[in-house]
């Protein structure tokens, strides 16, 4: 078992190191970002191997979802660092008494990042990039449930980075608890709502700000996609492919933004099911287990959880129309589709996080809006439709971290879009500049000269001063001039308190 006796001391040392100001320097930040990029490029094969070990991820999937996206983010951060670090001037009204005002970003200090097992590199390093770019010292705890990946992060990555300022530490829940007992300037957590509450409660003791990237049941609605041209078959094919890859192609559905379930009109089922069957085969092959085109379930506990979602409830089991076989030895579940399992069953009330796809039929596709609205706000909503009024209804009436039309998961790679949840799916956002901002304090800085002081700021208070203050606060430049020149009267009287009968109750 790991020995954490030096943890408190290490954290203290890191805080002292932050105090030297080293991590604030632009050159330091840039060097760390470049080192991170070097780590990814030099260890790509090891990363693929680790992901294969822990999750059975195919190399291409690993690149597409983890390595590739991280390199993209690093390139952006390195390019934009100076711009992000620069203060932003704050516009001042003409009459303002200040000579200048700006907003200056500064690091928060020592931050803690908890990441998750399903995208162990992505979810560890995306926040790390933001924290380092913002000039913080960082402690990163990757998930113990993806041990090969965590090991790679703890044993190889530190040799690339400044270990005085960045510490990567492996361990389970007891390490998590110990870490939460220390004092942090920010905690960034990716994981379940249950643990999110524990993290936030611990943070409350020190008024530590938190970002919580949680999950939820991300729904997709699939409209019939008819159009005046005879293209519906083509569009539907594209939609089906995108839906399938957003479920089975995303770590076998074990992704916070994977499609959890699909809503379609019940008249559409007969068209849809055969298409799904065909494309599952085309995309994942006859032997997905062997070809790694679909990842494995992370461990036995989750495997059994998923199995029981189907097997524990006979009505749910009956609703399986495609797939449904479980290989416990290999922790492999084949792509499974269900039609209309009961809405109160566990598979429809808990986040699935696996390769089981319920299809819920509705009378009219517009009913999806009400269906989604009545449930907790998810991390993402996917709407496959060309119907502009349905698109508007989805935009205006539903709430989610993100909303994507005619695709899924792709929002993850868009640097200009904030990535994060709302309500039960969490709060806080990151990616691109949002990562930098989330690990920064935006400090207001106002400067004045010794000239231009307005005497009416100071007592003794007179009616004249009251008038002047009022016009000044109303930013009424002309009015002020008039009052000073004695040309503007006022309906005001200065209230004399002695004349009023006040019930002073102490």
């Amino acid at each position, binding site marked *: 078992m790991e020995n954490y006796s030096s943890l408190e001391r290490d954290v203290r040392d890191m805080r002292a190191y932050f105090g030297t100001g080293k991590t604030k320097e632009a050159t330091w930040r840039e060097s760390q970002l470049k080192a991170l990029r070097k780590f990814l490029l030099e260890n790509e094969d090891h990363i693929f191997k680790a992901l294969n070990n822990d999750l059975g991820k195919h190399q291409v999937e690993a690149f597409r979802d983890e390595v590739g996206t991280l390199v993209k983010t690093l390139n952006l951060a390195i390019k934009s660092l100076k711009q992000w670090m620069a203060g932003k001037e704050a516009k001042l009204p003409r009459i303002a008494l200040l000579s200048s005002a700006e907003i200056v970003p500064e690091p928060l200090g020592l931050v803690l990042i908890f990441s998750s097992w399903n995208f162990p590199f992505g979810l560890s390093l995306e926040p790390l990039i933001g924290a380092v770019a913002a000039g913080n010292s960082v402690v990163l705890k990757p998930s113990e449930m993806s041990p090969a990946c965590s090991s790679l992060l703890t044993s190889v990555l530190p040799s690339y980075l400044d270990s005085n300022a960045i510490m990567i530490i492996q361990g389970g829940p007891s390490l998590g608890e110990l870490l939460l007992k220390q004092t942090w300037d920010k905690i960034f957590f990716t994981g379940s709502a249950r643990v999110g*509450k524990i993290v936030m409660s611990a*943070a409350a003791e020190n008024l530590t700000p938190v970002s919580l990237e949680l999950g939820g049941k991300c729904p997709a609605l699939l409209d019939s996609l008819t159009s005046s041209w005879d293209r519906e078959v083509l569009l539907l094919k594209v939609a089906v492919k995108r839906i399938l890859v957003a479920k089975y192609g995303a770590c076998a559905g074990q992704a916070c933004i994977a499609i959890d379930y699909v809503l379609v009109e019940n008249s559409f089922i007969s068209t849809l099911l055969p298409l799904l069957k065909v494309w599952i085969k085309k995309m994942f092959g006859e032997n997905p287990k062997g070809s790694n085109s679909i990842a494995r379930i992370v461990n036995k506990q989750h495997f059994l959880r998923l199995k029981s979602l189907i097997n524990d409830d006979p009505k749910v089991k009956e609703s399986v129309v495609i797939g449904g076989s479980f290989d416990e030895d290999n922790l492999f579940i084949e792509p499974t589709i269900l039609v209309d399992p009961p809405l109160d069953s566990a598979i429809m009330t808990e986040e699935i996080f696996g390769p089981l796809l319920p299809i819920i039929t509705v009378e009219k596709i517009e009913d999806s809006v009400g269906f989604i609205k009545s449930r907790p706000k998810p991390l993402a909503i996917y709407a496959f439709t060309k119907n502009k009024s349905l698109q508007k209804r989805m935009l205006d009436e539903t709430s989610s971290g993100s909303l*994507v039309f005619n695709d899924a998961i792709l929002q993850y790679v868009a640097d200009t879009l904030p990535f994060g949840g709302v309500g039960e799916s969490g709060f806080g956002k990151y990616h691109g500049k949002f990562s930098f901002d989330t690990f920064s304090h935006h400090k207001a*800085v106002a400067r004045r000269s010794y000239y231009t*002081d307005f005497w009416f700021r100071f007592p003794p208070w007179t009616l004249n001063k009251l008038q002047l203050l009022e016009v000044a606060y109303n930013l009424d430049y002309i009015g002020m001039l008039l009052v000073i020149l004695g040309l503007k009267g006022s309906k005001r009287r200065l209230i004399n308190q002695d004349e009023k009968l006040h019930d002073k109750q102490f």
Partner: protein
Amino acid sequence: MLSSTEVHEKQNKKESFNAEAASLLVKNLTATFASGKTRSYEWRASQLKALTKLLSDAHEQQIVDALYSDLSKPPLETVAYEIAMLKNSCKGALKELKRWMTSEKVKTSISTFPSTAEIVSEPLGVVLIISAWNYPFLLSLEPIIGAIAAGNAVVLKPSEVAPATSSLLAKLLGEYLDNSCIRVVEGAVDETSALLQQKWDKIFYTGNGRVARIVMAAAAKHLTPVVLELGGKSPAVVDSNIDLKVATRRIIAGKWCCNNGQACISPDYIITTKDYAPKLVDALKTELEKFYGKNPLESKDLSRIVNSNHFGRLTKLLDDEKLSGKIVFGGEKDESKLMISPTILLDVPRNSLMMREEIFGPLLPIITVDKLEESFDVINSGTKPLAAYLFTTNNKLKEQFVMNISAGGLVINDTALHLAINTLPFGGVGESGIGAYHGKFSFDAFSHKKAVLYRSFFGDAAIRYPPYTNTKMRLLKALIGGGLLGIIRALFGLS
């Protein structure tokens, strides 16, 4: 003032506001919010216009009276710092509302090509605002402006320590605003606890660190995001190369002209050099006498201490034996009027009670150092304050101050003024708080920024999908990371 029947009614109302009542309130507001009522521009603008009316001359006297009753606040302070600033905010919000509500189009890159994207601001839902007693009107309505502009339903819990203002707020908001969406719950610990047990979409709290921990712990149970506007010991560093008279007046303006030092951004203490301290003390004495006369306890231009609790707390700070002989000005008290005169102390020991907690009153300790640069260590040895001030003409010192002092906001050569600038975020860091507001920052504090991506069906890249091949791998690499050249090379199998 309230008649006896009104007081009795009020007390009955208070008794019945328990967890059940709070739950029902939230349920009702949630249903109203779900109906979409608060989302329209028309509704938001109508409420902001109603607030503007509320702040007009018609009620100015009532507001001044309430604040005078609660704090003996000079009418001019009320008009300038509570009413005028709010009017400004309302006006600004109305003017900018359409622009704030418009979604922000963002550029997309080749990694999501072809696509368009935007960031849409949407209301969080039903929010709880808990305000403080020192600027009870301002600290209640300023966040409400943001919450309404962002399209939320709101419950306001004003501070019971300023009861006349709390009553007035309940009355006026009840009269002017849409009661199906905006409500005031008056009360103290019990009512606040009942409210905190409920599930809110955001909690906005202004107050102290102790209660803030309780608020955040309650929020954690429901994963509710919070804004915490707290306080701290805001230092003012004074160099010797300044226009002393102007600097002194500005220090006084930020301290005693702001509710007699009971303001979260009042300069809490001063740091200056041993050599300069006597000059500073003399200047302060001179200006203080000009402002408040020879008998400041009688001055009409100073707020009183809010209640006997705080009066006792401040007395205890003064009675600390470590401070004997340190008072160089003032120190007069009148318990019957709950008045403490502007008091200056020189060479206060760092381990005295006064230097360990936020003073929040008319006592100004001066810490002396040998070299002014040492002041940075003094400040950094404490927790991060809400504000920090520096008076100097030395540009290098100014830049070092900005670089090395972490606080919610910094002002060079003045105090407190950044509060009035709507384009600056107002909030703390570390112990002084989480989040910020004012101007558009208020709108943002009460909004969810939803990422929206529109994808076309054309240009579908087969490389995204299994079966996975080496070619796809090369193309993916080029697409995600590389530029045009990389893509061309990959397409021609040259990479």
